[in-house]
């Protein structure tokens, strides 16, 4: 299923929600399956185009080699940085345990 023609399924939506780290309710999955199907159906005109000879445009600007000198600039104040943290401890950001080190 690589031509984008097969309809999107509930399972696809659940898989994508896992990739996107979104805890969706059943109702949300239901709704999004329909919404995504509608948008992808609209995009079928694009998916169906034969564009083999056309290069992709990743970027509208024809710039190259935008480089910065290797010179130190001031970093932020740590108190200001950690003030934004939901939970901080010992100068660092605290997070719940990590179960999935993939």
């Amino acid at each position, binding site marked *: 299923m690589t031509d984008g023609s097969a309809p999107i399924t509930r399972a696809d939506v659940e898989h994508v929600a896992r*990739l996107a780290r979104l805890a969706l309710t059943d109702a949300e999955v239901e709704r999004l399956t329909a919404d995504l199907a509608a948008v992808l159906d609209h995009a079928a005109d694009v998916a169906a185009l034969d564009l083999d000879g056309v290069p992709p445009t990743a970027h509208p600007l024809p710039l190259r080699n935008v480089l910065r000198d290797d010179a130190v*600039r001031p970093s932020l104040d740590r108190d200001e*940085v950690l003030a934004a943290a939901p939970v901080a401890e010992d100068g*660092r950001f605290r997070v719940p*345990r990590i179960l999935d080190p993939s």
Partner: protein
Amino acid sequence: MTTSGYEAVIGLEAHVELATATKLFCGCPNEFGAAPNTHVCPVCLGLPGSLPVLNRAVVEYALRFAAALGFRVPDESIFARKNYFYPDMPKDYQISQYEEPILVDGSIEVDGVHIGIERAHLEEDTGKTTHMGGGGRIHEADYSLVDYNRAGVPLMEIVSRPDIRTAEQARAYVSELRGVLKALGVSDVKMEEGSMRVDANVSVRPVGTEAFGTKVEIKNMNSLRSLGRAIDFEIERQIAALEAGERIVQETRHWDEADGRTHGMRTKEGSSDYRYFPEPDLVPVAPSGEMRAAAAAAVPELPAARRARLVADWGVSEADARVLVDVDGLADFAAAAVDALRDGAARDVANWCTGDVMAHLNETGLSIEVLPLAPDGLAELVGLVAAGTISRNQAKDVLAECLRAPTRPAQVVAERGLEQVSDTGALAAVVDEVLAANADAVAEYRSGDDKAKKKKRGFLMGECMKALRGQGNPQLLNALLDERLA
């Protein structure tokens, strides 16, 4: 591992932190060991609205590496986003090079064999996570703490071709790569501090077959020694599995230094869909001829060439040349000593360096720049031995003192009154005195068999040295004894 009818196919991925002043995409200091979260800014913290700007030095370093190992530098390389969630990654994507890396198709000669290097690409490092509770292990931890000082530090990922066949060869490859990177001045390449991290892809196949076996990725080796052990373990494990009729599972396994085994990690199915796409916040890198030429001009003598020169010019062994070149600053130290040498051979300088100096560095853990002994001090020591002022054994003590505290070999010799007595007249007087005082021993020598002769001669020599407080020139003393006892 061909003895068992199998051979291993090994490819290595080395992540090397580049020794720039600042990070890959921002002006925060690239510095190890600062207080947590003090080297961070909107860019490397991934704050909303911040944008990356590429560090020029990183491109220069990559081009220098390319010139050193004959990589092809494509006209254009681009950055991509590798998307996955992990708390040590501030943007929850890593900016890395994917389809169009900055360097392709290089190679490095390791013990006469060319190991291909498929590509080298630039990417940003992640922050550092500390697991709290559960003995610091990720799975048993209660929670984790994140420090983003390392986030955004420039990495070059160097991907070898699967040209490596043994653990020993893998170690030699990494060691040679380290030497080159260090000589180029682009990285500290310290595996223990994590400025060089190596993952290994290992598979085995029956000798004589062409097709690759299923490969397993091994992570978490933090020294050359553990790299070798991990690969050996994994090869044995895979062979044993195949022999037992099992199938090798494609997976990532972690090396556990403590139990000396690799362990499989359960990864969630489908979790490795990275959704790469071109990084829209950066523009392509298209190194100009000028940039390439400047990088090529900045390539110094590489370790292999330097070793060959030491063997040829100084007459040292291949193994000693390797020690001199591999140990930080040692060959430079030796070369400075050789330059300062007035009396003696370069080879003697090298021997002291690979022997006593190295032993001292290993014992103390010091680096060569902080030694109290300057290269011309070592030259002076070699000169004292060559001139016969002190013996080699005395020189060892003198050197030990010079390595401990700032002083000069000549000064130590003078303070301790160590000058060797080489005046034949003075030595003859002592010999005669000793022989007269030990007439019994002389008689027993004369009448004894070979064994007795040897024993008595040693005794008389010892008495002479005792009388001279160990400072008699041994060659001259031996000659005088031989003459008187004949």
